[in-house]
């Protein structure tokens, strides 16, 4: 069981967590207050000011700090709104997959038998189909919009949660304190919610963190392929895909959105590594 105060003390002492928390807090603030921070609307076009380089490269206009794109839109503003989109999709997709995966993992681990067989075989099937190809197939049939994107990502990430929760449940089920809970007549539901689930939380938090990084990259990748967020909506992946056409003329268009994704992912991964050190050193190989 996680001891709250103890963990907090350890987390404060962990440099990785401290440093990455700063990155993550800034990211969340930028995403949340995008409308207050961004100097322009992400849709605002100034065709007379298109493909202007960043401020410090002289030729740019004063007000567009990171330059403008092929429609004269402010790159910085689009990145700020893009961060919001990435976070939103990341959080929603991870929530769906975590709920789904935890539920199935608890059932598979606790009841075993046929439930376990069916759930784990479905997981194996999904793990064998490369996610991007599965997404392509679904999106070609259903069309691409944000809801489909979130659903596709959410429903292709549950396996990691299910496998982990199942594994932990299997080993917990044999423990003495579970046996004694049975002995005093606790119901299955009570045992699962009161004794098993809380004990999987430490590993789950690490998994959720690392999965968030994966999902954000995935969203950007699908948008990059034109399957995710559709123009003119601002998204870091879409910006990168549009930048390909101006690669020899406008380096800033491809550099900054990608750098933004990388910094966010580094922040999340570093946080996840730190969390793992504090909460669950056994998970080192994940």
């Amino acid at each position: 069981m996680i001891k709250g105060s103890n963990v907090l003390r350890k987390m404060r002492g962990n440099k990785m967590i401290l440093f990455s928390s700063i990155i993550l807090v800034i990211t969340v603030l930028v995403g949340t207050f995008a409308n207050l921070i961004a100097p322009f609307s992400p849709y605002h076009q100034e065709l007379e000011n298109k493909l202007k380089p960043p401020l410090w490269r002289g030729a740019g206009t004063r007000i567009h700090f990171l330059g403008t794109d092929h429609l004269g839109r402010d790159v910085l503003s689009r990145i700020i709104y893009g961060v919001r989109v990435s976070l939103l999709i990341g959080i929603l997709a991870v929530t769906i997959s975590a709920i789904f995966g935890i539920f199935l993992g608890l059932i598979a681990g606790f009841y075993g038998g046929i439930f376990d067989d069916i759930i784990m075989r479905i997981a194996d099937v999904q793990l064998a189909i490369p996610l991007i190809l599965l997404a392509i197939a679904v999106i070609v049939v259903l069309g691409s919009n944000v809801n489909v994107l979130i659903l596709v990502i959410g429903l292709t990430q549950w396996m990691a949660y299910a496998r982990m929760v199942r594994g932990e449940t299997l080993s917990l089920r044999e423990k003495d304190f579970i046996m004694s809970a049975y002995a005093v007549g606790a119901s299955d539901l009570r045992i699962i919610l009161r004794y098993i689930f809380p004990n999987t939380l430490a590993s789950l938090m690490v998994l959720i963190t690392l999965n968030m990084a994966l999902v954000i990259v995935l969203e950007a990748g699908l948008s990059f392929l034109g399957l995710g967020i559709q123009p003119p909506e601002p998204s870091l992946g879409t910006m990168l895909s549009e930048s390909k056409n101006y690669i020899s003329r406008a380096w800033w268009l491809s550099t900054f959105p990608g750098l933004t994704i990388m910094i966010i992912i580094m922040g999340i991964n570093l946080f996840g590594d730190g969390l793992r050190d504090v909460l669950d050193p056994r998970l080192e190989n994940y």
Partner: protein
Amino acid sequence: MPANPPYVFSAMRAYLTRRLVHSIIIIIGISMVVFIISRITGDPVSIMVDFTTPQEDREIIRKELGLDKPIPVQYLIFLMNAAKGDFGNSIRYEEPALDLVFQRIPATLRLLVFTIGWSLILAIPIGIISALKRNSLFDLMGMAFTFIGQSIPSFWLGIMMIMIVGVRFQLLPISGYGDGDIAHIIMPAITLGAFGMASFARITRSSMLAVLDSDYIQTARAKGLRETFVVIKHALRNALIPIVTILGLQIAGLLGGAVITEQIFAYPGVGWLAVQSIYNRDFPVIQAIVMVVSIGVVATNFLIDIIYTLIDPRIRYDKGK
């Protein structure tokens, strides 16, 4: 090494048979997923024809495809055809979809071989040296390098390389297959392999650290064996097992990543065909690609199971599911 007693082989055979049955179940599962996707909208004809196609023609197609039959029967028809390699004709090219996929497989395989090759060649030494010289400057730099490798989005890495290596300094071609020369594959292979390389290096390091601490390595050292001998003969062999596991887990990811990589570099492999097929709404081709690639993943994992039995003696005796 003493010869294996006969019961070991029968245990191995039992284990591999179990894995084979498992693989076949998974492939049937994949065919179900593909079938279900084609039926999500309820009307598969709508993804095959233009929206201007009149209702009567749609009815004819529906009859031809057996779509007036009950769903389980439709699935069986689909499964039988798939087993014969018939996924229907490409809407765009009007050739059998499977043929189109097979034409692209060599290019993608080449990309995968180069990718896995360079990432292992770089990752294993980094991992070993980092573990042997734990907390040294090399270890620190190695871990920082692999951390970046794990965090950098592959498509961005590709675009940056095109911009700097390809356009600015014109060192390498930025797109296409050429005549299959090395120059055309370097940047795609780096793009696709960066993440895997970083993971392999980290796994090698942590499993080497675990093995180096273990009793039998201490014993080998105590016997006075040379350190290089201990590392290579005893430690590496055991440290390799997790690497093989991770390789198996990453195959699906690599094939998915190939879709994006091939798109960036207009590299004419299976992934590129997949993306082209989205724009053409060529569902038969996508269906064939998903089936072929996923079967490839299952086959690779079965191969890895065989490798396991060779490198990890414990599995020969007992390994549950």
